[in-house]
């Protein structure tokens, strides 16, 4: 992405006009993440507000060599959402999470559509190179937000195996992404 198009670079200098552009470019992504990892719509709305404040504060940390702007924003969003989950200590009784279909067909990652295609295509390619069980664990842990214990219960894998798959899977994704030129 040419630096002229970098919303985060403009956010980093406090460019007032970047607020609308930032919301327009990443609003849908953050909203999707927040709804997926929040127990209610109102909670998701609160999370979105906090996430964008975090993005505003952290924009100058964005490293174009480490990943795309969308990946950076998604990282900020996930951190905030995970913090909120932990602070609520609701993992067990989260109604949104309990309603998920863990055998979601998304188990087979494909190149995503729409505005995330460019950013997530490489990640999908990286996931395709994982062992099926590693991919399954990452799907449940990262996308569905299940704990290791919940994944072990869902899949029948030993807890230690789940942890190992999650860790090695992430490392492998990182390796593949780095091998693609450092872009994620």
């Amino acid at each position: 992405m040419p630096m002229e198009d970098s919303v985060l670079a403009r956010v980093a200098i406090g460019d007032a006009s970047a607020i609308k552009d930032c919301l327009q470019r990443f609003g849908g992504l953050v909203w999707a993440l927040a709804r997926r990892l929040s127990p209610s719509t109102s909670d998701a709305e609160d999370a979105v507000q906090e996430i964008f404040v975090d993005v505003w504060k952290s924009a100058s940390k964005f490293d174009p060599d480490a990943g795309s702007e969308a990946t950076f924003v998604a990282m900020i969003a996930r951190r905030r959402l995970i913090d909120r989950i932990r602070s609520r200590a609701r993992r067990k009784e989260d109604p949104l999470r309990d309603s998920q279909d863990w055998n979601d067909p998304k188990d087979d990652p494909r190149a995503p559509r729409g505005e995330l295609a460019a950013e997530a295509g490489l990640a999908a390619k990286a996931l395709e190179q994982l062992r099926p069980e590693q991919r399954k664990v990452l799907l449940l842990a990262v996308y569905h937000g299940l704990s290791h214990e919940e994944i072990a219960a869902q899949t029948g894998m030993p807890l230690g195996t789940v942890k190992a798959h999650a860790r090695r899977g992430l490392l492998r994704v990182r390796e593949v992404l780095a091998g693609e030129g450092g872009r994620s």
Partner: protein
Amino acid sequence: MIPPKVEDRMIELLADRAVGTLSMDDARELAGLLREYPELDTDVLDLAAAAVHLAYEQAPLAPLPAHLAARVEAALARADVGRTLVDPGTLRTLPIASAPAAPPHARPVAASVAAAAAPWPPRQVAKLGPVGRARTPWIAYAGWAAAAALFLVSAALFRASHGPGIPLANERARLMAQADSVQTSFAALKDEAAKQAQGDVVWSTREQRGFMRFRGLAANPHDKWVYQLWIFDAAQDDRFPVDGGVFDIEPSTGDVLVPIQAKIRVSNPTQFVVTIERPGGVVVSKRERVAMAGKI
């Protein structure tokens, strides 16, 4: 150097953090390890997890609801983070001499009238964000990568240093007047880029901010090499000086001010050194080209 067993443990904890399964006890352990070994890049696995999430986010994204977008916009505008908002139109039209809210890559402060009247080239505005850092393939030792909390502080300071109505020259003068600030002159070393260069530096440890000022330092071809500042800290091993930020020098006959962007806290600076590195900067400098240095 992180002992291999400690590194394995840190990676395990960072992986747990990335997928959201870090316990409170583990979080405390990780925080302690990161304080002891700040050189480990703490973002890589979080970024990998974010990339995985994006890969699975296949449904077309619904836009942010209008009421929520308005709420977020209002929150950003009234929050502290909004206080330094810059109107880019103002940035483009103010004379440089009176509003040197210059990019960190060295916008000339003392510029000609013609230059002052000229609009800011879009490229320069766009480059105000951090310059990319070189990474090793996966769990790169980012040398001195900031811990998250420290980073938020530095990010806020970065923005504050570019806010409206806070000319860099005034900020530099204010820092120089601080009782705790340290100042020194840069000596030009043998590198061709610095053969006609003069410079000085001011640093406030209390505020964790500072400025370099240069005259005669050669403009760098952005696609070939950049300047990078290193801050030697008495509290750190001299082999691992603090990364003070990457910057460009544009062609100029006047003084050029460059805000310092230390990646981690500097406790007791002893020396400021400017090296020449590949575009994007480096994590560890081989110190093959050293342009300028100033001892406190």
